């Protein structure tokens, strides 16, 4: 059974068929069924068909090139043979985790649109499912060209979702979103074509090249030899990295995100924050690090600084927002900064933390957007100043929102903490930066800062303080205090004729609503207290992502002027670990 293809295409197929037969009002049911089918298939694959140990390997053939591959549930069809493009999907631990996240949040994407979408339902749900297909495909594609196609496929449905069902300033936002990410896509396409032509290794001064779009073949070629052709390629790495960094988004490429989030309908925000941003982090871990380890190590210090800036800067700008959605959007910039910081620490703590942080951000930020969407449906405004005292009138909502906020704050015992903690722990031992500090012409050496990873960790950890500030402001302004409007004269309400007076009068959550938040809350608590299965699933992903970089790092350390001493200072732990 082509399980992965079913996961990718079955939901959209069901929706398309359903769209023909169902009346518009029932379209949501069709979409829900589709998403549930997708979820069921995913869980079936993950629980029964997938080997989480990470020990799976097999020899695969792609257009005559053979490679050792660790991907499971592979499906391979020759597609455009003239260009050696094929349809290959397969999963490893990293992609499987992301697929599960996508499948779960997809269901919430439908549920939160249940009442919010009341016009052009068919189109909306088709776009939503198409988006889901694009994301699933992105996480599962093993052919670079196929990956690029799915990557572009994610763009279009969201363009329409924001453009048609968004709020007031939607056209600007959607235009910006599409153009911005399109720039990244073009860079990615160039990089992919470059990779197609240049995949190989230099043996005795002779280039032996294997033209391929297959990720598995590329990986095998590039890892097989120290003289692999990608090793000195800086520009393709940068092009690829920029494409992913825009998606993450990394400072200073983040400004599309607040606009897109603010204007998107709830489902758009949920999917955007929950999974779409993860495609960026996924891409970096999947492609940038293993294929371009040299470039990754070289650029890591600079990227790390950008990540640190993103963490702090995202938090600072979040603090002064007045629009709830904008606040959470900027908090995403900060939180995704942790992901980048962890990845480029290039140690297991950082990498595992980054993967977990992606999952956590998917849970907590989607939860926040879901919750905000529920409020928006009632109040038709996102201005925090229009709320207040909701804890009185909506206690269930207040309690569940608190869990989401605390998960996002990184309270130990909930999921958010584990990701942040391990990433920050890893950042104190950022290996490329420690190497950089040994380089006589680096900034670090110039400043005579042998411990400047401490500075990195110290600055990044301030994000923990600012994170508490903006999330508590958010919570206090909406839930505490007296109900807003209690003292207002009613002239105020004239602007919002449809909102029946602010504060106080909103009904508490329905079962459909609190059910969504409760599921995410339980997930947050479960991962926070018993993360063992998740760590187990992440460990092989960490290993696969770091192994190629580790070789490079090892080589770089050996190249240092006084390797013995330097090795000791960079890996001071070796001695103790050996005990």
């Amino acid at each position, binding site marked *: 059974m082509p399980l992965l293809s079913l996961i990718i295409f079955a939901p959209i197929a069901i929706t398309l068929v359903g769209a023909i037969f169902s009346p518009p009002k029932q379209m949501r049911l069709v979409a829900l069924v589709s998403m549930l089918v997708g979820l069921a298939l995913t869980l079936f694959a993950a629980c029964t068909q997938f080997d989480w140990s990470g020990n799976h390997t097999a020899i695969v053939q792609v257009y005559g090139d053979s490679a050792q591959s660790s991907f499971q549930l592979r499906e391979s069809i020759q597609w455009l043979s003239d260009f050696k493009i094929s349809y290959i999907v397969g999963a490893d631990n990293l992609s499987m985790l992301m697929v599960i996240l996508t499948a779960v949040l997809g269901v919430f994407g439908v549920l939160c649109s249940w009442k919010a979408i009341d016009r052009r339902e068919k189109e909306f749900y088709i776009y939503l499912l198409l988006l889901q297909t694009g994301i699933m495909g992105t996480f599962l594609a093993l052919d670079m060209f196929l990956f690029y196609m799915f990557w572009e496929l994610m763009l279009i449905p969201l363009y329409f979702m924001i453009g048609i069902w968004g709020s007031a300033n939607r056209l600007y936002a959607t235009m*910006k979103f599409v153009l911005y990410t399109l720039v990244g896509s073009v860079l990615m396409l160039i990089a992919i074509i470059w990779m197609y032509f240049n995949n190989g290794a230099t043996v005795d001064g002779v280039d032996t090249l294997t033209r391929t779009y297959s990720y598995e073949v590329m990986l095998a070629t590039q890892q097989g030899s120290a003289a692999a052709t990608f090793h000195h390629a800086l520009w393709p790495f940068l092009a690829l990295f920029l494409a992913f960094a825009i998606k993450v988004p990394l400072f200073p490429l983040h400004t599309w995100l607040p606009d897109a989030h603010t204007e998107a309908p709830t489902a758009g925000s949920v999917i955007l924050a929950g999974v779409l941003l993860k495609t960026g982090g996924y891409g970096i871990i999947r492609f940038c690090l293993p294929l371009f380890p040299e470039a990754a190590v070289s650029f890591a210090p600079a990227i790390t600084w950008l990540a640190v800036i993103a963490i702090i800067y995202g938090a600072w700008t979040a603090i002064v927002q007045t629009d709830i959605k904008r606040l959470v959007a900027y908090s995403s910039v900060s939180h995704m900064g942790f992901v980048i910081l962890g990845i480029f620490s290039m140690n297991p703590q950082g990498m595992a933390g980054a993967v977990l942080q992606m999952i956590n951000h998917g849970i907590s930020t989607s939860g926040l957007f879901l919750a905000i969407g529920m409020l928006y449906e009632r109040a038709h405004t996102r201005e925090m100043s229009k709320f207040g005292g909701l804890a009185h009138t909506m206690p269930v909502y207040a309690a569940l929102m608190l869990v989401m906020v605390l998960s996002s704050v990184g309270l130990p015992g909930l999921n958010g903490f584990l990701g942040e903690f391990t990433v920050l722990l890893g950042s104190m031992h950022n290996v490329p930066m420690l190497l950089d500090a040994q380089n006589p012409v680096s900034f670090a050496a110039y400043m005579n800062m042998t411990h400047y990873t401490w500075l990195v*960790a110290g600055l990044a950890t301030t994000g923990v303080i600012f994170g508490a500030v903006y999330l508590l402001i958010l919570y206090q302004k909406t*839930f505490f205090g007296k109900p807003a409007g209690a003292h207002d004269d009613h002239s105020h309400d004239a602007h919002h004729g449809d909102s029946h007076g602010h504060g106080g009068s909103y009904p508490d959550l329905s079962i459909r609503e609190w059910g969504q938040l409760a599921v995410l809350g339980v997930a947050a608590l479960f991962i926070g207290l018993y993360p063992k299965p998740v760590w*187990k699933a992440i460990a092989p992903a960490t290993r696969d992502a770091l192994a190629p970089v580790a070789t490079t790092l090892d080589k770089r350390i050996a190249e240092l002027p006084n390797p013995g001493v330097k090795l000791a200072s960079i890996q001071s732990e070796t001695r103790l670990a050996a005990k």
Partner: protein
Amino acid sequence: MIDLVWLIPVIMAGAALANGLGCRKLGKIAGYISVGAMITTFVISCMVFLQVRDITKAIPHHGGEHAAEQEAHHGRHGASMLAEYETLGHEQQEAIKAQYLFVRADPKAPKPYDTTVRGGLGGHVPLYEWINIPGVFRGDRPLTIEFAFHVDQLTSIFLMFISFVGSLVFIYATGYMKEGPHNTLDPGYARFFSYLALFAASMYTLILGANFVVMFIGWEGVGLCSYLLIGYYFDRQFSAKLSCADAGKKAFVANRVGDFGLMLGMFLLFWGLGTLDFQTIITMLSGDVSALPAGFGYNGAIITAATLLLFLGATGKSAQIPLFVWLPDAMAGPTPVSALIHAATMVTAGIYMLARLNVLYMLAPTTLVVVAVIGGATAFIAAFAGLTQRGIKKILAYSTVSQLGYMFLAMGVGSFAAGIFHVFTHAFFKACLFLAAGSLIHALHHEEDVFKMGGLAKKMKGTAFAYGFATLAIAGIVPFAGFFSKDEILYNVYTAAQGSNGGFYCALWLLGLLTALLTAFYMGRSFVLAFLGKTRLQEHPAHDAHQAEGEDAHDDHHHHAVAYSEVHESPLPIVGPIVILGILSLVVGWLNIPEGLLPLGDFNSLFHHFLAPVTDRGALLVAAQQYGYTGGAAPAGAIVVGEVLSNNALATNWHGPELILAIVSVAIGLVGLGFAFMLYGSGSLAKSECLARKPLLRNLWNISFSAWKWDDVYDAIFVRMMMTIYAIALWFDQNIVDGVVNGIGLLNRRIGIEFRRLQNGQVQVYGLVMFVGVCVVLLYFVLSLPQALGENRMTVTERTREILGSKNVSSITTKPVALPEQPPTTLAKH
């Protein structure tokens, strides 16, 4: 029972969950659930304590008891060893003694000192693996964090007093959280008890955690509960500037600043030692010195940095300079919360952590100096601020900050057991004071201003009696609890002043004495103003009661002036706990009577003896290292000799001017109290107002009443400055970062318009453009050629590769590039 210790937090968490889910439907039952759970945990704590005590007893204090066993073990007679010892020089004798002392305190010590409990003196209770990140690269350090609890003497003491005081406060709260004449339950009754239970669960996790990260769950958990409970009346205003919710946020953020330090401290320790488990860290540091990584020896750079960062965490949680500002505002929470969280338990977490890590702190003398200074300064500054406050809870809040300062002062001079003993006695008398204050506030319908009280002793005998006892305790009057604990701290500071840097410690000691004077005065003042003299309340109910009702509805504070004749003692659930705590404020100090004051044989310094295996480890290690201990077990001879020699060697040797110092500090306490009586005893405020008019005193009064303007300064520096920075960041984002993006968009449109003009169909123009392009490309190559052929002796192919950033030009052209005339840029079009 130690193996089942995890039940304690789980029971409380269960109670929290039950109350949280049941919410308003539960009504009164919510209180019963939490109280029942708390009492259950008290029972379990008692059992754990007894077990720990039995194990501790099994460790010999006196060598003679085990002489036979030692003979069998070492095969030599103790007496002959002793004779040999006598012949040694002083230095060697000291070395042997120190090694013995240290090894005896070592949980991994060889028999007969090993005990049956796992891990030596304490029980390690692993539950499951919580964080597990294996290494990938050979230099990687795996991260494994167990979700594990650890029980030892220190833990069991904390368990005992937290569960005991907690139970009393919970019972009290069932009486306190009622409103109005009909004793209707507070609307958030279940929510309140849910938070309280969650707090207890977190507090238990904090003290039980076997490693930093599990402790951190509790650490942040209590912070969260504190936030929620301070902001319990989330729709009310606390002061002119702050709402209750603001006060909660302030507490949480101040704590987060501390947690920032705590996390970084953890990171430093992890990258240095490869573990975050308390016992492993302590064992490593007290083990082979040469095996330790750089910076972890005595006064090492990294251990100093790490302990300082951890101490920043402690200042956040335990309200010390620079982060103490949140605690006075934390009084926005209901009074039981102030008593339990902001006096007895949560705020002592920082002290607990320092005591837990006493080995680290003793190895970092620089940090200890900082701790002592911060502690002493906070004690004085807060006590000074307490002198003039009018709100009774405000007075008690500053008093708490000040007393916590004392505890840190004790830690700073290396007497961790003394600090913990003050935590212990303080938990009783300060909880008593807060609960009694709550009883007053309850009886006076939310009146907190002591200037508006007076003469209440006649009306509320139980409350007054307990408050009086606790006041005597905190003022350090013999034989109340506070006397013994505070005196021990001051005595230890005095002892430190006899060593090196005597002047510095002497100054700290004098500061401590001065603080004791201020403490006695402000506590006496609050007692006299509230309970003695002529009342300043209205004698009889006013006729305009309905007007007061109107005001009440307006400001939602439910407080209208209660007339003196209307005041009556609070109900039993409120008074009962207060009286019990009042009596305990007298007796708990007797657990640690120093020999120098009253020789009682085995009964002397009970508390200290019990804690010594945990809290004296650091001091012993440093002493042992001074005499040449470098890790490993002490030689058998040392053990035997030490065993014979040491009589109560683990206890602080109380000697010298102990008695004189005690008399001095009691005298100071009496002076403070007496002055308060003199000034306010009559029930009139005239005398104090007269004093306050004198210019110098006026200024001092202003400084005190505004609490050194600390809040204003922070407001100006941090809050406003940060707000400006946030605003600048936002401006930067909207105008620069986004401006560039929008600018590029506009530029593109502009370029599009311009380029449209070029598409004019004239072949000549196209040709010209092409020519220029080819020229540019050629020029580029000619210019780069000398470099390519220069000292690097690069071939053109290599140069081309370098330009393209790769090594595979051939892949593009399918044949090697040999000639410079073939510009690779054109090839890229293939």
